[in-house]
């Protein structure tokens, strides 16, 4: 074996070990995160804190799924919130009208979301940047107006009232606050883990190629349209999961869940947390909800405050918080190596 070959074998082995290590590391982090979150009720009786985490789960799933489109694929959807609303309404309606077990309703909602996302995606992903953004926004408005005008089915502007029945299954009673909390955390962690797997799979790298240079990707034999449609549907599924957590939390579904401002908040969260790291949107979610909760307590003009914050991130930092931190670390590392 020549020196070159030996060096090559070494790098190959390290790359191979790296992939396995990375996978275990992700699972390990997920397990630890879940353990920490799940043990929280043992230490605190604060209902407000648990509520906060549940809301973070719903928004975090939604915002991270949006990052699959925006950050990884370069598809800036202004209508991603429609799948959040769709998840909440489908799940709520199935539970209210059919009274199915919760896991069945969960899977059925995902199936409905997949079909609708495939139809909408097939129309949208052919379009270029700004047109994609606006047509997704148009579909969002369409779904929102459908919910408003189909009052006999959806409750119109009153939303799904009367509560969503939450029958116990497998010893889990989601009407119990702690059970609901643990289930939300589990969905969040599992959802994030699944999205992380998508991001780190060969398909995830196909998405990065499309984001960087779609034309070149097609000259490597990649069917760009199909890849974009696939990620559009996958992202919709996780947004729908977020919507279901929200519906369970408020025991209802309201037209605001499907309004375009939800999509706007998703974009806002991604700008706050940053799109260049996987957990950026999760950090952004916590930031936005914290800001929202504290600012609304002090002033009714919370919109102005949030606007100033987003301007600071967009114009001042020109990146999200976690982007900033990641860059700072890599600078430090480079400086350390240079010495």
């Amino acid at each position, binding site marked *: 074996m020549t020196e070159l070959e030996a060096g090559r074998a070494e790098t190959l082995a390290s790359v191979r070990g790296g992939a396995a290590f990375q996978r275990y590391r992700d699972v390990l982090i997920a397990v630890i995160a879940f353990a920490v979150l799940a043990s929280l009720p043992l230490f605190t009786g604060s209902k407000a804190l648990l509520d906060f985490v549940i809301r973070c789960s719903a928004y975090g799933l939604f915002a991270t799924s949006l990052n699959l489109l925006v950050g990884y694929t370069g598809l800036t959807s202004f209508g991603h919130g429609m799948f959040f609303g769709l998840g909440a309404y489908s799940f709520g309606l199935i539970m209210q009208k059919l009274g199915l077990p919760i896991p069945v309703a969960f899977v059925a909602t995902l199936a409905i979301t997949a079909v609708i996302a495939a139809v909408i995606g097939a129309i949208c992903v052919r379009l270029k940047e700004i047109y994609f953004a606006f047509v997704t926004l148009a579909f969002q408005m369409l779904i929102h107006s459908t919910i408003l005008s189909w009052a006999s089915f959806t409750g119109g502007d009153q939303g799904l009232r009367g509560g969503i029945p939450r029958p116990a299954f497998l010893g889990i009673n989601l009407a119990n606050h702690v059970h609901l909390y643990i289930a939300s955390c589990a969905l969040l962690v599992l959802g994030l883990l699944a999205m992380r797997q998508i991001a780190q*799979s060969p398909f995830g790298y196909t998405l990065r190629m499309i984001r960087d240079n779609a034309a070149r*990707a097609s000259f490597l034999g990649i069917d760009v349209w199909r890849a974009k449609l696939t990620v559009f549907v996958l992202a919709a599924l996780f947004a729908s999961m977020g919507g279901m957590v929200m519906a369970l939390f408020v025991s209802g579904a309201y037209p605001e869940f499907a309004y375009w401002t939800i999509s706007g908040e998703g974009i806002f969260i991604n700008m706050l947390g940053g799109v260049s790291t996987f957990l950026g949107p999760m950090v952004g979610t916590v930031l936005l909800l914290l800001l929202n909760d504290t600012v609304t307590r002090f002033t009714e003009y919370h919109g102005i405050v949030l606007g100033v914050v987003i301007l600071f991130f967009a114009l001042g930092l020109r990146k999200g918080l976690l982007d900033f931190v990641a860059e700072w670390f890599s600078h430090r590392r480079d400086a350390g190596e240079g010495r």
Partner: protein
Amino acid sequence: MLEIRNLAKSFGGVKATNDVTLDFPDGSLTAVIGPNGAGKSTFFNLITGALKPDSGQVLLDGVDLAGRSPPEIVRHGIGRAFQVASIFKSLTVQETMLAAVSADQRTSAVLHKHFPLPETRDRAEHVMELLGLAGKRDRTAATLSHGDQKLLDIALALVLEPKVLLLDEPTAGMGPEERWRMIDKVRELWETQKITVVFIEHDMDIVFKIAPKIVVLCYGRILATGTPDEIRNNSAVIDAYLGTEHAGAAA
């Protein structure tokens, strides 16, 4: 063998490619030259599916590929590199290669495994060595020098193991020394990989030195084809392109 039959493409009233018929035998090295606007890049775009021809055939080993999509044509074995290096700026050199092999092995939609797949490594490694990019494997593509970006672009085409490799001005934007290094690399690839190579080039010294066969395009038509000596002494080429001074110097 790549056979082009009566290929034509017009933009409005301009015939960018006008009834072009050419053969590129297996393992040949051909230079395509011509003044600006001669239709050289259009010719490549028609072969690779970036543009749909109005009429004519692009036969690769007897299969007509004219008018098919770029992914289909790539899968049949026609790879290309671009005039302006067309790369993935946020990926490292190694990731770029591994992802390209994944695309070729049709595993680019795999969700349940981690990137990179073990079976993509050897080919990626081989091509990185071949183009001298192995030492820069962990560099992000955007941070590479202009010359290395061009090499990476060629590596992207080559890693798909094409039968035919089309290089649109591999030396574009390079200094004199870098040009020769690049063109030596191209020639070396052609000799070692036994593939059909067609390249567009503006530098006549390079063309006459390394291309066994030259095609001259002018206003979308073939003005002449032949060996360097034939082209150098072709009166139509001298009038349209080379100019008398160059011909005098050559004679």
